[in-house]
């Protein structure tokens, strides 16, 4: 239940609802969408990326002197877990065609396609369980231009406009052109898309879409896709070996500068294993658990940007790592689910963001960065937010409108996960609005790739959230689910093709020593060791006692991670 002091504000929301319902029933936007100038003003004034300390130049590596998100620069200016002389590379513990790092949607797609198209064997090495990934959590849907009023090129224009025209054109083309084929691929694997009576795919709007092209599986879209892909991966144990709780901690190169596998670390036994692979795919996802600028996150437990730092040490260039996506609608209250994702499909279905007086202050379907910045502005500048008992702030997202617009039972049928999340705390979202605030959601940039998922390093491929260039500096809703499918499949195709031809040379970890030297030469002083692997949520006093254990326990619980988390979260 909402605390009593919010009753007055809730009363105002109910009071303005009939008029807003009338607006929503008309074809015109319920609030004027912003012009290019208005968009720029709200971004520069209120988006967290534009705060003075949000970015700083990185002092080492391929993007040296480029201004990056501060936490990312910290992550890159760090020590490896390993020194080259510690690891015996003469006799690898495992050999395979493809090593796929990350067991989310991109990784599973890559393994399946490399097998089906090229007969290649894969190892999927994943930090937690296969499927412990942001892929599993996407609620609202996947964009694909499948309806008759839409086209892939129309999808192209929406995506590139949403990304402020900075997206790499060849990647956006691959995304939008492969979209319909991906829908079919997944359907043939057994994904149950939401359909209309006649079998046509049900399509909805998302932020920044000019045609309805959001496909869904209730609000368990990612879960449905991910479980289908995982099930199919597990149907091929002879071709795809899954190594759970075995994150990669460094890439292995050969003496010709090609990627040749990785060193894995077993979270169970604390052993290191070497994998020699003809080609390597990084599909490690994003970095929400670094809690950039102290924000809550929608991300899964292992989203700590591991792939970025491994690839960077090996010499791969990053792109747009100065841009962070804050999802406009994270939960602000109840405290226990603060930061959780409230799917954008709620706004796609007619939900409206409102200030404490129950008034609209932004078009509900602006691209994400614009919508998020407008919500922050409403709270920070206009005093339009509602403060929670723990001191968070939020605006209302009026969900009861949805059943009024689409008929009773619609929310129950299409948003069962959302309903469950709130009813645990006595909030029935068909009767009461949700209190929301932007939440750290997505890594817009990443390791730069081309349309074949190739990087600067031969033999190293990247797919999904870990990659950069596709979304420019702002991703639209539903384009990440499509991303991990399109580029996961492409990574499997091209890494598989490459693996057929390559003859690897002598294995090497010399790049780690070179990077360490570069840190020293640049005068970087840090005790940070990465990849981070897991965040720590222990209270401060516990963390202080954990400091005494030194650096010989699980990575996530040690000095270094604590420091990172404390500094970033402002805890």
């Amino acid at each position, binding site marked *: 239940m909402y605390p009593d002091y919010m009753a007055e504000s809730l009363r105002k929301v109910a009071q303005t609802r009939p008029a807003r319902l009338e607006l929503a029933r008309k074809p015109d936007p319920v609030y004027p969408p912003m012009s290019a100038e208005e968009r720029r003003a709200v971004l520069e004034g209120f988006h967290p990326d534009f705060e003075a300390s949000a970015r700083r130049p990185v002092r080492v590596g391929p993007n040296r002197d480029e201004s990056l998100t501060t936490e990312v620069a910290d992550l890159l200016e760090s020590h490896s877990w390993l020194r080259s002389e510690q690891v015996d590379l003469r006799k690898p513990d495992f050999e395979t065609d493809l090593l796929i790092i990350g067991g989310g949607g991109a990784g599973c797609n890559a393994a399946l396609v490399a097998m089906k198209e090229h007969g290649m064997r894969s190892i999927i090495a994943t930090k937690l*369980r296969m499927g412990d990934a942001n892929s599993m959590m996407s609620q609202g849907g996947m964009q694909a231009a*499948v309806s008759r009023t839409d086209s*892939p090129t129309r999808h192209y224009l929406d995506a590139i406009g949403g990304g402020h025209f900075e997206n790499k054109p060849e990647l956006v*083309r691959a995304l939008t052109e492969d979209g319909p084929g991906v829908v079919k691929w997944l359907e043939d694997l*057994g994904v*149950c898309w939401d359909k209309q009576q006649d079998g046509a795919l049900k399509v909805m709007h998302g932020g920044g879409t000019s045609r309805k092209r959001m496909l869904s599986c209730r609000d368990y879209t990612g879960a449905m896709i991910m479980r289908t892909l995982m099930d199919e991966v597990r*149907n091929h144990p002879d071709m795809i070996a899954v190594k759970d709780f075995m994150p990669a901690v460094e890439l292995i190169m050969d003496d010709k500068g090609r990627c040749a596998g990785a060193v894995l670390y077993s979270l169970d036994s604390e052993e290191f294993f070497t994998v020699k692979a003809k080609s390597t795919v990084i599909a490690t996802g994003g970095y929400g658990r670094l809690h950039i600028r102290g924000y809550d996150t929608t991300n899964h437990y292992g989203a700590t940007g591991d792939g970025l730092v491994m690839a960077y040490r090996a010499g791969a260039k990053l792109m747009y790592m100065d841009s962070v996506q804050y999802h406009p609608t994270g939960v602000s209250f109840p405290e226990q689910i603060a930061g959780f994702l409230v799917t954008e499909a709620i706004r796609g279905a007619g939900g409206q963001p409102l200030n404490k007086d129950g008034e609209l202050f932004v078009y509900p379907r602006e691209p994400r960065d614009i919508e998020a910045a407008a919500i922050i502005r409403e709270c920070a500048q206009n005093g339009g937010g509602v403060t929670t008992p723990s001191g968070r702030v939020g605006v209302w997202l009026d969900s009861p409108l949805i059943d009024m617009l689409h008929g009773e039972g619609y929310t129950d049928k299409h948003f069962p996960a959302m309903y469950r*999340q709130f009813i645990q705390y006595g909030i029935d979202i068909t009767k009461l609005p949700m209190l929301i605030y932007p939440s750290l959601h997505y890594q817009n940039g990443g390791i730069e790739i081309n349309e074949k998922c190739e990087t600067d390093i031969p033999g190293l491929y990247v797919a999904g959230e870990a990659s950069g260039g596709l979304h420019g500096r702002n991703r639209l809703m539903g384009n990440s689910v499509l991303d991990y499918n399109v580029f996961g499949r492409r990574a499997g195709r091209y890494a598989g093709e490459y693996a057929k031809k390559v003859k690897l040379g002598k294995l090497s970890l010399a790049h780690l020593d070179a990077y360490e030297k570069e840190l020293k030469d640049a005068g970087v002083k840090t005790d940070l060791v990465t990849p981070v692997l897991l965040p720590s949520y222990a209270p401060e006093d516990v963390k202080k006692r954990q400091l005494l254990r030194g650096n010989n326990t699980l990575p996530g619980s040690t000095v270094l991670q604590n420091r990172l988390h404390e500094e970033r979260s402002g805890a």
Partner: protein
Amino acid sequence: MTSVAAGVTRNLSISQADGGRSKSEQRLIPISIMGKAYQVPADATIMGAIEYAGHQIVRGAGCREGYCGACATLYRLPGDYKIHTGLACMTMVEEGMTLAQIPYVPAEKSIYDIEELKPNVSAIQQMYPSVFRCVACNTCTKSCPQGLQVMDYVQAAKRGDIAAVMDLSFDCVVCGLCMLRCPAEITQPLMGIMAKRLYGRYLRKDSPELAERVKAVESGAYDAEYAKLMPMSREALSKLYYARDSE
């Protein structure tokens, strides 16, 4: 309305509304984590409480938002003989609760080729014959943290009603609690995944417009438009973008 497992729905305590509490003023309650006593915040989730106690969870946390099923938990309450089940990320602690997370539920997934199966009872018989051991005790349904009618979908599977299994198991997060509690040792979530795949593969209504669109892409129908759009300057694209109509 979507049902929620009994024992999960709770209101926040009124004291939440006091406002401005600092962490040190949090009301703490005693609970037992794997047999060891801790004081944890009264309004914490089980996952929050375990982390408050200083544990670094490795097995037992995934999405942390109720989608991935990594955090299956068993618990008992004082003066209550029942074994309760929940997802640690979604269930609140209670005074005197004694709990353990379940790191993994052993279960054998059947290996199959979806192209070789038929969407009827034969697939269930071949791949998950244990389903027919169901004694209709309803323990699975009672143990489901999602509030799903698990036994009903097991019964539907016995009848070969794949569409009903799909519908009733749609929101399953594969936490494994039902199969852990099942006296007939059925692996309900795994059977549910197969049934959903059979539905999607064979029983769906096909979308004619999807087939047309896939064909159009393959025949290069959009090549010319892409060739026009891709080299466009930022200014030209911007003009086109802001002038586009919306459906």
